[in-house]
């Protein structure tokens, strides 16, 4: 109620400023999602989902929108309308995912799509021009709504992005997007948008013809910049709405030569067929048949173009229903929810904001952490022991920023200004001001101990000491600390600027405020964060280790690395298992395998770690040394097998067991060990929630997103199936495949689910 009153007041106060004939609608007081006021002969429709930072298309919003539009169409006084959000930073973020998840049947979903189609069709045919005034995210259903309007004006703000990300949720734009987008921006561009789900910035959108006008965001004036920018956007939109109603402005856009040529080419059936074929081929290659949505999108677009709109719309709604019902879509939507969860700080706000950060070690990790920190405005010290190491690290940060300049995501001026947040040094100068120190030195306990003691001598009392380690238990590192409550683990993933996950590890002694602070820094760095308990390998490394052990076993059994890679990628892993070892570093893998092998014994057995030892001794450390399972050369994309590996593999060769060595068995041997260990982590309390387990596995380790993570996978494919598999392999190999108790419990009572 409060919000509505405010809204009333806002319209009221603006009344005197811009127009005289403001008419309040009596219905204003009963609507919660949409309001409108009239300025002159232009209706200004404001979208404002209650109790949320973003607007989402829910059933309530749909029905209120229909009501409002009907009033506008019926009114004699109104000649045009402007559609705008009351929320800064968000036009409409998309359809309400919960609304889709709540649907039990395909028909229900299809019906939702058809309703939305009907509303938007009416909007598209509106006799009175409607201008969408876009500030902030305009995604999914939001964009479909916007492109149904007669005109679009967007703020040229970084926050203003347009896109149809449905494919990332395993669905398709189900409110006419598949039909309208190709007409608006051309088939190739539309397919690109729909198949990648990419966000398009306002200036690019203008070039593509997705929006008609841009409005520059304003600086400080007589009101806060954001507020005034919204007002200005509205004022500009109103002038355009009037212009459209008076026919002084044409909603038609002048197309460029290239665009005209493309459009012409697409009128030739043969060209169209070639385009479909090409795109389909590419999609098949990239999805490996694991994701049904992209192919259906192409299919629906094709139907619309080849058989006409009616068939297109029908196909869109039906395929939308089918897709939303798929396991893949459920898995991806689950991940979306998990991601939202992992973008929150469950420990609340820390007592003191971290403003000065110090990073020890300018290696790949240290410099990566520095890069994601400086560009968020954190004053960062990067300290290394040697000048060459430091140089390399600083160069890495600069290159990371400069690549963004090349992609026009930053200006060269912004790059320089961001880079000035970084101080590279060899000593501990300035550490007395640090609020947090993240160490990213080599994975060696005694070294970490030495560093911790050195640092504690120079940092202030409130300063947090975070260790970036992938396997050393944090409590062991903290053992030499004078203030173990300030010690925490922050496990980043390489390359830090690309990998979204941050695994935060708390020990028994870590204080709540320390955790809050670490999560706050991670969120600032743009990470999705899982918080796990301390233990050997924490969560992510611990899940990966048994799978890696199996990788070695499989290689020992004579499967060559290329074949193994293709088996894992075709299961949905983004990187093949052998390539992954090369990327992580064979020495690191060896380290982890030895450490964890000691602790977990038989359960991490299977493969012979001798393979890794021999590789390390020959200098085959993976990509960083130029040789691992493959040979890596600067500037050469093709990867050749490292033939020197043959003798090592031959010396450790084991006979394969034919009953468990089919391609599918190999895939499942890998993935079931992963899943079993993940569930064990939950069972042992390392993980607090299954959602964090899924997010960690997918975003940190590349667990197939189409399966939604180990826990979602168990839920969707049945615990019994997985336990059966494990038992089969257990019979062949032994204890490393014994299903853990929690997994067995789930298999025994089919009602038990990780996600209720």
């Amino acid at each position, binding site marked *: 109620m409060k919000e509505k009153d405010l809204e009333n007041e806002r319209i009221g106060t603006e009344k005197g400023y811009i127009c005289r004939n403001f008419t309040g609608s009596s219905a204003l007081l009963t609507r919660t999602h949409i309001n409108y006021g009239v300025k002159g002969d232009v209706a200004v429709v404001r979208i404002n989902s209650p109790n949320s930072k973003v607007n989402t298309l829910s059933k309530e919003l749909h029905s209120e929108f229909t009501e409002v539009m009907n009033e506008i169409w019926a009114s004699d006084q109104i000649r045009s309308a402007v559609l705008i959000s009351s929320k800064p930073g968000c036009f409409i973020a998309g359809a309400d995912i919960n609304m889709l998840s709540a649907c039990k049947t395909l028909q229900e979903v299809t019906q939702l799509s058809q309703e939305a189609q009907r509303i938007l069709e009416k909007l598209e045919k509106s006799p009175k021009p409607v201008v969408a005034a876009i500030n902030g995210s305009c995604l999914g259903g939001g964009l479909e709504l916007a492109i149904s309007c007669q005109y679009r004006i967007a703020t040229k703000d970084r926050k203003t992005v347009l896109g149809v990300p449905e494919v990332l949720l395993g669905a398709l734009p189900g409110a006419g997007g598949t039909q309208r987008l190709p007409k608006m921006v051309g088939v190739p561009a539309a397919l690109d948008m729909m198949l990648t789900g990419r966000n398009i910035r306002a200036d690019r959108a203008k070039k593509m013809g997705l929006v008609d*006008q841009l409005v*520059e965001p*304003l*600086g*400080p*004036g*007589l*009101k*806060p*910049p954001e507020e*005034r920018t919204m007002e*200005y956007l509205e004022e*500009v939109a109103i*002038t*355009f709405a009037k212009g459209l109603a008076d026919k002084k402005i044409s909603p038609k856009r002048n197309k460029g030569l290239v665009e005209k040529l493309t459009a012409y080419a697409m009128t030739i059936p043969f060209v169209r067929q070639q385009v479909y074929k090409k795109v389909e081929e590419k999609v098949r290659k990239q999805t490996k048949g694991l994701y049904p949505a992209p192919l259906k999108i192409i299919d629906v677009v094709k139907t619309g173009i080849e058989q006409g709109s009616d068939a297109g719309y029908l196909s869109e709604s039906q395929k939308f229903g089918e897709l939303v019902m798929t396991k893949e879509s459920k898995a991806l939507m689950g991940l979306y929810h998990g991601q939202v969860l992992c973008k929150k700080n469950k420990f609340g706000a820390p007592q003191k904001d971290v403003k000065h950060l110090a990073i020890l070690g300018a290696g790949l990790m240290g410099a990566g952490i520095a890069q994601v920190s400086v560009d968020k405005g954190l004053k960062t010290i990067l300290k290394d022991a040697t000048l060459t190491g430091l140089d390399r690290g600083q160069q890495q940060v600069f290159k990371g920023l400069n690549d963004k300049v090349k992609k026009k995501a930053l*200006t060269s*001026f912004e790059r320089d200004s961001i880079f000035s947040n970084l101080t590279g040094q060899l000593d501990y100068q300035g550490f007395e001001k640090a609020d947090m120190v993240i160490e990213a030195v080599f994975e060696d306990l005694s070294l970490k101990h030495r560093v911790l003691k050195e640092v504690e001598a120079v940092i202030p009392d409130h300063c947090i000491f975070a260790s970036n380690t992938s396997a050393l238990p944090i409590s062991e590192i903290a053992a030499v600390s004078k203030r173990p409550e300030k010690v925490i683990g922050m496990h980043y993933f390489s390359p830090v600027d690309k990998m979204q996950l941050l695994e935060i590890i708390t020990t028994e002694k870590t204080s709540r405020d320390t955790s809050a602070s670490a999560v706050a820094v991670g969120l600032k760095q743009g990470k999705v964060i899982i918080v796990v308990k301390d233990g050997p390998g924490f969560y992510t490394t611990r899940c990966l280790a048994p799978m890696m052990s199996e990788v070695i076993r499989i290689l020992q059994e004579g499967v060559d690395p290329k074949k193994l890679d293709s088996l894992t990628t075709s299961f949905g892993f983004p990187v093949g298992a052998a390539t992954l070892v090369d990327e992580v570093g064979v020495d690191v893998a060896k380290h982890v395998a030895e450490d964890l092998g000691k602790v977990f014994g038989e359960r991490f057995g299977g493969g012979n770690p001798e393979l890794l030892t021999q590789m390390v001794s020959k200098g085959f450390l993976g990509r960083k040394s130029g040789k691992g399972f493959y040979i890596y050369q600067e500037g050469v994309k093709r990867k050749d097998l490292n033939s020197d590996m043959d003798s090592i593999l031959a010396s450790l060769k084991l006979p394969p067991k034919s009953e468990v060595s089919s391609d599918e068995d190999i895939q499942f041997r890998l993935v079931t060990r992963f899943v079993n260990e993940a569930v064990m982590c939950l069972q042992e309390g390392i993980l607090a929630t299954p959602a964090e387990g899924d997010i960690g596995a997918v975003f940190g380790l590349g667990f197939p997103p189409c399966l939604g993570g180990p826990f979602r996978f168990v839920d969707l494919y049945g615990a019994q199936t997985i336990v059966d598999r494990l038992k089969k392999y257990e019979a062949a190999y032994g204890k490393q495949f014994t299903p853990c108790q929690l997994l067995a419990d789930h298999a025994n009572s089919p009602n038990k689910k990780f996600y209720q």
Partner: protein
Amino acid sequence: MTTILTCPFKKLPTTSKWALRFAVQTKTKKTLAKPNIRNVVVVDGVRTPFLLSGTSYKDLMPHDLARAALTGLLHRTSVPKEVVDYIIFGTVIQEVKTSNVAREAALGAGFSDKTPAHTVTMACISANQAMTTGVGLIASGQCDVIVAGGVELMSDIPIRHSRKMRKLMLDLNKAKSMGQRLSLISKFRLNFLAPELPAVAEFSTSETMGHSADRLAAAFAVSRLEQDEYALRSHSLAKKAQDEGLLSDVVPFRVPGKDTVTKDNGIRPSSLEQMAKLKPAFIKPYGTVTAANSSFLTDGASAMLIMAEEKALAMGYKPKAYLRDFMYVSQDPKDQLLLGPTYATPKVLEKAGLTMNDIDAFEFHEAFSGQILANFKAMDSDWFAENYMGRKTKVGLPPLEKFNNWGGSLSLGHPFGATGCRLVMAAANRLRKEGGQYGLVAACAAGGQPSMVVCAYNSSYSGG
């Protein structure tokens, strides 16, 4: 000396607000003189007529224009060339052949070749910087007599080869063998020939000035009509001043091979109807800044003779004004690029111990109507003062009847490097003509750093 200087302020109301407040210091207060700091005076200042670029000055080089201003100054003041200690000029877009344009112009204008000269640049307040540098040199006792000025020739700008082409040409210079030369030449691509133009844009944001002004006007909700009205005022007042012969700082310039130019040619009072027809120049199609309400590209030069007061008196001059406090401020180059006057005004007034009410002549640089009006709105806003300036109350509006009464940059023109001296001379001449006491000069500049000079004028020398 002090008594001579302070006694003639007969016009001063004895019970004015500040006089009461500063009763104890009345004596120094009246002159704004500071103990132990030399008084700096403007003996006189001149400028060439300001012309639309591409008109009569189009075949000249910048130092030709600067020379015209300097000879004009010599002629007007009859200052013996050997007494000039130093010459400083401001300029923005440099002609690379005459990068120290001050020196080239001074040599040609007949100043002594023993007088050092340097050139300064600070966007639209380059001449202000030349003057305040001079003030500093005099106040610190380094010099007694300074010539300060500025020049800009927008008719010709240095259009360069692209960086790639330049690199190729430089490498060719260094190539030793035919083989090396050929291999370099083989790297040539047609796009190397695309020229690089200097833009009136911020380097840090790549935003052009007009674009920024349009956004600023929008941020302060300044309407198109308001902007056109203000521009019309500027042109009308300039026309009037020109017709009445008030623009006495203008010296005629006999352009080589052409007719003698005697007056500014950008003053064109139009009608609001005519102005309303123009399309927006920067933010198309809905912006509010147009060609009619912006300052235009201008060619022109100005020069001014500044001296230590005792030197001027000893030489028998009757100076036109004191140059008192000045202040440079700077702020965000993106969103507050053109708000300098708002920030600087209260600070410099405070420094001088004055209030808005004390000022008799305001001379603000008019880059755009929208920029002046946005500054007015900012100065009149408590909210802005609280949230962006750290002040409890608003700065307050300068009264329009005291504001740019003889026209401004919108109508007279704005040769970037030369405008500062024009502003100061306009303030000085207005005070003498109108019998005022204090003048305030303010300008905005690229990089977000405006300047401000307060001139306290001593009417005793004006003979009135």
